[in-house]
């Protein structure tokens, strides 16, 4: 329990750091971003909206930085992330709310599958060290060195086209309304196969390698020799003795590298024009839509923190030692 409390405290601290960072980033923007927005949307922005944007960007010179910071927190706690420039005048929270399920569905599920599958394969490769499986390791290295987005480009070039089963972009067929029905769900699944496969291929090999190395390290421990000497079946020694212990560093590694993985997978959305957070971030960057960029960064960070907390719970369940102390 203590372990979990410590971790939660740390994640709260990290969330605070991220939010504070998010507060300062727009204040580094040179010039007056609101002015450039106004000149781009000549006459289409009301005076009220301009004033609220100035508050958001800290251009309101009547307040000192501390008051601005408190105001920012107040806005945030009300779920107010400002108005998006791209989809003006839609609030950022609405834009994010629309695209978050897509990202959670695609990136979340594929990341977990890739971890489980990679770990399972790594157990096999580590246990059978020195067999033909070792020959496959350089190939996995090569696959993991390919940028996700480039693999996505190749996948589009090879598998899509006129008459192909796979669509090349989007999250569902144009004309369908997002709903849980017999038309929308199959279409959404069909659109997610290629992006998911792209993420799987390039992210899995990292897990295979780290799990293999842990298995190799663990399988020369004395307790493994003892387990063999007791005459336990090979399967039991491999899974219950070696893999269970080798898994622990892999789970904590999973938690730590989530930030990197999520960053990479967001790019797959860009290539496939998949309507998730990554694609929104791409559009926001194109339009210099700072409120949307900040909002997306905040949501991604908080999701990663929650995922980290879940990974810690998993660690707690896997390692009895953390429960005792």
């Amino acid at each position, binding site marked *: 329990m203590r372990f979990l409390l410590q971790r939660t405290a740390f994640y709260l601290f990290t969330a605070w750091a991220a939010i504070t960072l998010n507060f300062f980033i727009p204040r580094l923007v040179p010039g007056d971003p609101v002015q450039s927005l106004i000149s781009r949307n000549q006459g289409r922005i009301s005076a009220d909206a301009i004033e609220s944007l100035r508050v958001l960007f800290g251009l309101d010179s009547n307040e000192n930085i501390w008051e601005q910071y408190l105001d920012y927190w107040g806005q945030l706690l009300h779920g107010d992330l400002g108005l998006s420039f791209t989809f003006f005048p839609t609030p950022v929270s609405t834009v994010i709310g629309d695209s978050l399920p897509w990202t959670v569905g695609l990136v979340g599920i594929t990341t977990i599958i890739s971890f489980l599958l990679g770990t399972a394969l790594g157990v096999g490769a580590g246990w059978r060290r020195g067999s033909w499986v070792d020959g496959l390791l350089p190939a996995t290295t090569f696959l993991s060195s390919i940028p996700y987005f480039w693999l996505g480009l190749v996948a589009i070039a090879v598998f899509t086209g006129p008459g192909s089963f796979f669509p090349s972009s989007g999250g569902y067929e144009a004309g369908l309304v997002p709903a849980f029905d017999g038309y929308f769900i199959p279409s959404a699944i069909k659109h997610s196969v290629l992006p998911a496969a792209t993420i799987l291929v390039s992210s899995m090999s990292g897990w295979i390698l780290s799990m293999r190395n842990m298995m190799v390290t663990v399988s020369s421990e004395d307790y493994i020799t003892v387990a063999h000497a007791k005459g336990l079946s090979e399967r039991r020694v491999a899974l219950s003795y070696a893999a269970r212990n080798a898994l622990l560093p892999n789970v904590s590694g999973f938690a730590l590298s989530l930030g*990197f993985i999520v960053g990479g997978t967001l790019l797959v959305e860009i290539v496939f024009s998949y309507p998730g957070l990554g694609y929104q971030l791409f559009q926001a960057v194109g339009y210099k839509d700072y409120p949307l960029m900040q909002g997306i960064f905040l949501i991604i960070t908080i999701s990663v923190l929650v995922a980290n907390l879940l990974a810690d719970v998993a660690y707690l369940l896997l390692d009895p030692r953390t429960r005792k102390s």
Partner: protein
Amino acid sequence: MTISPSSIEQVIPGQGAMAQPSAAPGRAKRRRFRFVANAKAATGLVILGVYCLFAVIGPWVAPYDPDARSADVLQAPSARHWFGTTHLGQDIFSQILVGARSVMVVGLLAGVLATILSILIGVTAGYIGGVPDEGLSALSNVFLVIPALPLIIIVTSIVEQASDTLVALIIGLTSWAWGARVLRAQTLSLRRRDYVEAARATGERTWRIILFEILPNLTAIIASGFVGTVIFAVMSEITLAFIGISSISSWNWGTILFWAQGQQALAQGAWWWFVPAGLAIALLGTALALINFGIDEFVSPRLRSAGKTRIRTADGRTVRMRVGFTPVLAPASRPVPAPREEVAP
């Protein structure tokens, strides 16, 4: 795009398998190049060397000006244009050669910066301990958990047309945390070793202990962290260029992909436009990863995929060698029943 978790960190705690003063003084000379003898590391170093060479001479040996337009619009690879041409008739082979410099410079610069930061923060935290350690560890953990790439994208997009140096600075300042964490863990275990205690007892200054007693034993970890950061930096830079945030007026492989994507190279079937750049990136990433494996295996010999494990015994059976086991190879005249799972039928 991910930094594959190095096994080094996992080997550290209390194992003592690494960082032990290895070479006897008299044999130091012979052992100096042992690292290169590792096939993986050697392959990686050779490929990396070729990339470095092209980074230096690329712009001079490029057959065309990468910006020059010509009448050969969207041509497939041919003898005149090895990697084909773009929609403006620019030579893609030249663009790749010229772009190598930017990629390598950003990768190495960011790698050096992040490595210096990780040494400063990680070793200080590990050696000094106490409150500074708590603070520095929390700082590096925060940087580790916050998704780096979105942060880099946002910070870079604030700057109009970010230059290579600036991109390298931003990447370097955000990607030191992993190295710092690993270095701190290893410094913690080195700090209480006898030879460090001895140095402290003889009254050596703290900076001297850190520089001459601790740091040399961290070389492998520092090297591996550096290589990992370079991979991440190269990927990030190419990503930034691909989504069009950093300056698109200078050439790197991300810029090529940016134009290919923007001009619908896929829809027009112009595979030569994006395949060479992607392969160049993947090959560079592979070379760096191979060097890292070499370092890992050099430090922790168990990880080597050591040659033949199936051995034929004198009486014609095969035995599979396994880590931690010493199979008894019985003479043919007196066969010893081996455990079932070790004998192939």
